[in-house]
């Protein structure tokens, strides 16, 4: 100890003392700042989560009483008649979403693959277009569907609705697929090319399978998005209180039913709207959670 004090001060040792003194004396302040920051994070998390939980809880509480066997198996009945359900809306939503998915998924995935593999001007334009499509207000998509399909085909139809919903889903799938394909390491691409594979073979055998969990997640999220859209359907499928499997005719759909029935002055129709809202929310939630679980499972399988 005395030897240290007697020796000429080593600037490095002096600095070490100064740094450690500063670190120790500022520790309390830093810990406090850390705690405050963490507290603020929790607070804002709460602000974000409370409305979410409140909405879910409220819809469950209001919607659950409407659920019974008839609710899922019978179509809507006019006000004043007992029983009835939302079977016609379930069928409509299922048919419309299935058609929209069947068209939007292959187109979207191939677009995404092109965007991921190409960096030319065409790709840049396409990417920009997809971004713009994502931002188009859904009512505009509905108007477009009305003018382009309904007016030219002689009436409201499930096909017109599927067109509008597909339009909503497409850019979501494109960007999700592009992100997933871009996530495939370049070295895998090059490894396949170095073995003499063509680019198309590389895409089919390496890029697509590797990116599949991400693509599936993106598709399921797009389907969830499409299920809940209301505005594009209002102007394209019109609604139908009777069961209709034929997509060339006007159809009912869950969002339309919720929209129409929730503004009715009759308590039992409002009750049906709550039940339909709960059903729609449950399906969308199940798709979101399911897509995540599936992706996690597929990634785990691979290791």
């Amino acid at each position, binding site marked *: 100890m005395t030897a*240290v004090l007697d020796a000429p001060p080593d*600037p490095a*040792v002096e600095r070490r003392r*100064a*740094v*450690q003194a500063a670190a120790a*004396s500022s520790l309390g*302040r*830093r810990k406090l700042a850390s705690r405050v920051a963490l507290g603020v994070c929790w607070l804002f998390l709460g602000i974000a989560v409370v409305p979410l939980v409140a909405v879910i809880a409220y819809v469950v509480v209001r919607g659950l009483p409407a659920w019974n066997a008839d609710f899922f198996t019978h179509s809507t009945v006019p006000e004043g008649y007992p029983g009835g359900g939302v079977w016609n809306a379930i069928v409509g939503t299922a048919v419309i979403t299935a058609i929209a998915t069947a068209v939007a998924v292959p187109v979207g995935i191939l677009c995404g693959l092109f965007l991921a593999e190409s960096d030319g001007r065409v790709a840049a334009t396409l990417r920009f277009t997809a971004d713009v499509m994502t931002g188009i207000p859904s009512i505009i998509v509905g108007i477009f569907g009305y003018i382009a399909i309904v007016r030219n085909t002689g009436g409201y139809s499930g096909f017109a609705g599927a067109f509008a919903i597909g339009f909503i889903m497409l850019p979501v799938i494109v960007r999700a697929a592009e992100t997933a394909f871009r996530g495939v390491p370049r070295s895998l691409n090059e490894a396949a090319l170095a073995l003499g594979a063509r680019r198309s073979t590389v895409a089919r055998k390496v890029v697509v399978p590797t990116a599949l969990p991400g693509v599936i997640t993106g598709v399921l999220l797009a389907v969830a998005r499409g299920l809940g859209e209301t505005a594009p359907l209002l102007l394209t499928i019109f609604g139908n209180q009777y069961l209709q499997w034929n997509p060339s005719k006007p159809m009912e759909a869950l969002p339309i039913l919720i929209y129409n029935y929730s503004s009715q002055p009759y308590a039992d129709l409002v009750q049906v709207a709550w039940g339909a809202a709960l059903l729609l929310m449950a399906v969308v939630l199940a798709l979101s959670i399911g897509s995540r679980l599936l992706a996690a499972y597929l990634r785990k399988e691979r290791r």
Partner: protein
Amino acid sequence: MTDTPIRHDEETLGVHADQATAGTSSGEVVMTLRDVAVAFGGKTAVRDVSFDVAAGEVTALIGPSGSGKTTLLRALNRMHDTVPSARVTGSVHLGDLDVYGPGTDPTLLRSRVGMVFQRPNPFPTMSIYDNTVSGLRFNGVRKKALLDEAAESALIAAALWDSVKDRLKAHGSTLSGGEQQRLCIARALAVEPEVLLMDEPTSALDPIATKRIEELVGELKERVTIVIVTHNMQQAMRVSDRCAFLLMGEDKAGELIEFGPTGPLFSEPSDPRTLDYVNGRFG
């Protein structure tokens, strides 16, 4: 600067005044490892490691891939704290300070045990100067004079001062890979740690940049005790005073096979497995 407040601060750190100067006089023990083991999610990655790190020396951790060198190194400054599934058992001491003791603050510990990583990782939004003094600022140092002095001293020590002194405001990303790694070394040195941990610091660099870092390691041990992980045995021979040889056991967990002065460990190792490894028969 008076003596009393410094003593006070060192007491809150849990060390005696003379330990704060460790690293300037060689031969003393700076870090003690006893039965150190690290497990991830119940799976042991490295176990049974006991040795002493001598002040003013370079201690190298060598061994093949998967032998737990990096895992062991990261246990020395509690980097595993950030991995929820990781558990460190056994004891690590820095002087008198129990590294994993209940009263030990990991941030204060890390200001005394610095680290340089495999790949150069200068903060991309900070200038060369800001990168160099970032550790000091994180630790609450505000005095401009001290920051300037520490920056110059650290950049000189990292053999970077002459090439960057006229462009301290430039971004760290404008430097070459080797220069970026020396900037990271300067950044670690500016805090004046007692021990500097280096995790394969040349693995991402070309041979010439590697040579400069190796020369640097030899010069730096005057100032700071170094523990370096390397998969390169020639590098271990060139830079280190002592070596710890680790090897993956039958259950895939790394174990300490042999520890000793570098020369004898390479020329006449006591364990046949060490002999095989240093002669390049495997690994």
